[in-house]
C-alpha cells in the first residue's frame, strides 16, 4: 500500500460525508429522518477516522474512500442502525468492530492471496491504538455536543433568561476556560462587574446551577447512543476511567498516531 505522510492539520480527521441530508439519498436507503441521520454521521465521523488512521497504519491514502464505503454499506444500510440499537454491548465497541470487520473484508477481497497476521488490519497493537483513538475522539465529541447544547439552552428565550445566560458565562469563563486553556480562573468580582451579578457569592451559586445544567446535557448526549439509566451511567463512568488512564500518561501516544499536530 502506498504510504502518505500524515497531514498536520485538524482537517485530517474529517472526511467528505457532511451533507447527506441534502443529497436526498438517505430516505431511499433507510427509514430515518434525513436530518437526524446527518447529525449522527457528523457526530461519528471524526472518531471513526481517528480509529481508522491508528488501527490501519499505512492505509492513510485509502481512509476517506473506505470510510465513505463503510458509511454507505453499513451505517446507511437499512436495518444496520436498528441492529446497532439492539442490546449488544457498548455502541462505541459496535462501531469499532463493524469498521474493523468491514476493512478486513475489503482487504481479503483485494488481496485474497495474502492472509497474514502481519498485514494491515491484523495488527493487534495498532488495533488497540485505534480503539483508544476512537474513544478519545468520542469523549471530545460528547463533551463538545454537551457544551453546545448547554449554551443553546442557556441562550434560549425563557422567563429567567438573564440568569441562565449569567450561569453560562460564569461556567464558560470561570471553569471551562481555565480547564481547557490552562489559565487562572477569572475572579468572581470580575464576573460580577462583567455580567452584572449581585455579588461574588451569587456568582458562585450560579456556577453550581451551571454545573447542574451541564451535567444534565452530558447525560442526555450519552443517553442518545446508549440506553438511558444504568447503561448511560456505565458509559459515563467508562469514559471517565478511560480519560483518567490517558491523563495519567499511560497512553497519550494515541494522539500522536491519530492527530500528530496535537500531541
Amino acid at each position: 500500500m502506498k504510504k502518505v505522510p500524515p497531514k498536520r492539520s485538524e482537517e485530517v480527521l474529517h472526511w467528505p460525508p457532511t451533507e447527506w441530508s441534502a443529497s436526498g439519498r438517505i430516505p431511499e436507503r433507510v427509514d430515518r429522518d434525513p436530518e437526524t441521520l446527518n447529525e449522527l454521521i457528523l457526530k461519528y465521523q471524526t472518531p471513526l477516522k481517528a480509529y481508522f488512521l491508528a488501527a490501519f497504519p499505512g492505509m492513510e491514502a485509502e481512509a476517506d474512500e473506505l470510510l465513505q464505503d463503510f458509511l454507505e454499506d453499513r451505517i446507511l444500510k437499512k436495518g444496520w442502525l436498528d441492529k446497532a440499537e439492539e442490546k449488544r454491548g457498548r455502541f462505541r465497541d459496535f462501531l469499532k468492530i463493524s469498521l474493523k470487520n468491514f476493512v478486513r473484508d475489503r482487504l481479503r477481497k483485494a488481496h485474497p492471496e495474502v492472509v497474514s497476521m502481519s498485514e494491515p488490519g491484523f495488527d493487534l497493537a495498532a488495533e488497540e491504538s485505534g480503539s483508544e483513538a476512537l474513544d478519545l475522539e468520542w469523549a471530545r465529541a460528547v463533551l463538545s455536543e454537551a457544551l453546545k447544547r448547554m449554551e443553546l439552552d442557556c441562550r434560549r428565550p425563557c422567563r429567567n433568561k438573564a440568569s441562565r445566560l449569567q450561569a453560562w458565562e460564569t461556567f464558560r469563563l470561570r471553569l471551562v476556560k481555565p480547564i481547557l486553556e490552562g489559565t487562572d480562573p477569572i475572579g468572581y468580582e470580575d464576573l460580577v462587574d462583567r455580567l452584572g451579578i449581585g455579588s461574588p457569592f451569587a456568582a458562585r451559586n450560579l456556577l453550581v446551577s451551571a454545573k447542574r445544567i451541564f451535567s444534565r446535557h452530558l447525560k442526555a448526549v450519552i443517553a442518545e447512543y446508549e440506553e438511558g439509566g444504568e447503561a448511560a451511567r456505565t458509559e459515563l463512568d467508562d469514559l471517565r476511567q478511560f480519560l483518567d488512564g490517558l491523563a495519567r500518561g499511560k497512553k497519550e501516544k494515541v494522539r500522536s498516531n491519530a492527530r500528530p499536530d496535537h500531541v
Partner: protein
Amino acid sequence: MTAFNPSKAVRSSKAAQLSKMMDLDPAVPDPWTTRDLPGMLRHQFAALLEFDLASMKLPGRAAGNRKDALEGAAAAGVKSFEDLLFHQEPPLELLKLSKEFFKWRIQVCAKSTPEWKISYLFYLLSILAAGEGMQLLSTLSSTDLIKSTGWALKQGWVDEKTKELILSARKRLLA
C-alpha cells in the same frame, strides 16, 4: 467577552483536560481563589450583621441578648459589618458576637484558604475595633495581636481604609 468557544476548544483538548470536564460535580462547590479575596472582603463588609450573627447557635438567654443588641444597633444605623467595625464607638456586645462568629468560621474553614483568610481578618478586626477595650474582648496578648496586625497589613487584598484601622490599632498596641 472573549472569543473563547468551549465546544470548539474541547475538540483539541488533551485527555487530562477532558477528564476534568467529565468530572465536574455539581455537588462540589467551586473553590475560592486568591483573586476572589478583594470581592469577598467587600461582600463581608457589606453583609448584614443580623444575617451572619443570628446564624450562631446560642443558649436561650444569650440568644435574647443578641436579638436586643442587633435591634438596638440597627436602630442606631449599625446594620452591616462595615458599620460596626468602622464605628467611632462600636457596641462591645456586637463586637464580641462578631469575634465569636469569625472564630467559629476559622475553625470550620481549611487553613490558609481564602475563606479562612477573610474569617481571620474579621476575627482580628472585631477585636481591634474595640480600641481601648481590646483586652476585654480577647485573651490574646498584645504581642500576639501585634503579630496578627503585621500579617493583615501584608495582605495585598486588604483595602487602604481597613489597613488604616489596623495601623491605628497597632500603634495603640505598640504604645
